[in-house]
């Protein structure tokens, strides 16, 4: 059995590993790095429960080999909160009850985060298309869409505050 030596940065922390080429990225994350927030749902790239960001692009980590992530930056659900302060998307899923069983939630939040980075003010239709690669079998999506709408508003407001706060300094 030959292995490949890889280096990946996960949530800002560098990890090295010797992996078989056939090891899927999701198994590297869950089994080797202990980051079990990324879920394996369908295992066939349909459901999106395993969604993570790789170099800023959302990807299904069950359909990528760990060797393909060599040298790349990965972000998982564990990298979203700032200590005890939830990411606005996590808070919004809580506030809007954007989950029932919660299995799809990590992937749903990661995909929503990618969507909002690409399009900070999406329409409802754009949100629905944006999460079309993520399946939820409980909620009917209504509260998930509301949560993403809330987070988009909260994140825009936070950005405004930062800009306003920075202005006097810039002026000074």
């Amino acid at each position: 059995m030959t292995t490949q030596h890889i280096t990946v940065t996960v949530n800002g922390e560098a990890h090295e590993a010797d992996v078989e080429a056939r090891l899927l990225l999701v198994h590297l994350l869950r089994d080797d790095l202990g980051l079990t927030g990324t879920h394996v749902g369908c295992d066939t790239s349909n459901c999106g429960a395993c969604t993570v960001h790789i170099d800023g692009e959302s990807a299904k980590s069950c359909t990528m080999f760990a060797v393909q992530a060599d040298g790349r930056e990965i972000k998982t659900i564990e990298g979203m909160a700032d200590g005890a302060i939830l990411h606005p998307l996590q808070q919004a899923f809580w506030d809007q009850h954007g989950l029932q069983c919660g299995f799809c939630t990590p992937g749903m939040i990661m995909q929503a985060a990618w969507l909002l980075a690409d399009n900070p003010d999406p329409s409802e239709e754009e949100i629905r298309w944006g999460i079309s690669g993520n399946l939820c079998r409980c909620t009917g999506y209504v509260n998930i869409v509301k949560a993403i709408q809330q987070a988009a508003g909260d994140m825009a407001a936070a950005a405004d505050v930062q800009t306003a706060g920075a202005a006097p300094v810039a002026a000074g």
Partner: protein
Amino acid sequence: MIPGQFEYARPANLDEVLRILKDREGEAKLLSGGYSLIPFIKLRLAQPALLVDLRDVTGLADIAETDDHLSIGAKATHRRIHEAPIVRDRYPLLHDVTALIGDPQVRNWGTIGGSVAHADPASDWPAVLIATNATIVCRSQTGERTIAARDFFVDTFQTAIEPTEVLTEIRVPRRPRGAGGAYEKLERKVGDFATVGVAAVVRLDPDGRITTAGVALTGVAETPFASTDAEAILAGQAPSDEIFRQAGAAAGAQSRPAGDVRGPVEYKRAMAAELTLRALRRATERALANA
């Protein structure tokens, strides 16, 4: 599902890829985005001895218009193609199809070259490339050759690519004045493979008659195919719903669908006819707007 074992290589350039393909002829598969190949390996539908990762091969992802065609590098992702200004402004057919392949994550990583080389009988790109009379460029150690899209899709998951070749580029003929195209896809749910997909291209002369038409279907035969009967009906005619319906009926009759979870044979033939009508209508609107 744990994939079977394979060797892995990540060559630094195309020459190195071509050398490996020659040395290990028939044993290697190329890895790009992986969204077609990895599910296949997991399901044991493909068991390559060696995967050759194209990640470090540069210069294969450009999108640019030349004097006679739009050149799309094989490693261009569906999303990059969708967002390319030249595609958005001038090639609405390509803009249509790149919004309908898989889902956002798949479009972030999946590539046109990978999709075309995989040749799923229900995938979207092949119908578009056949309808537009695109050509597919392949390289090997002995040089480059071009293959017409109409000759490329040999059978289910089988193409005209030789084991020693790499698909490097897709060339879509430059869109002339008076031409328009559209892609219509019927799917059970968003992100699914097509139950039926129809790509149509219509070219109008200054009098508004159809000089040539391209009609290609996916999901309704062992491989995507051109409905030559529909194309023959349309050539030389003034566009109308009547003639589009005749072309749709011909396309349905030329289909050879298999009954499966996406519907019985009769239903798929009827949908092939209906989607052909709709694609021709929209292609014609776009051709008129581009007169």
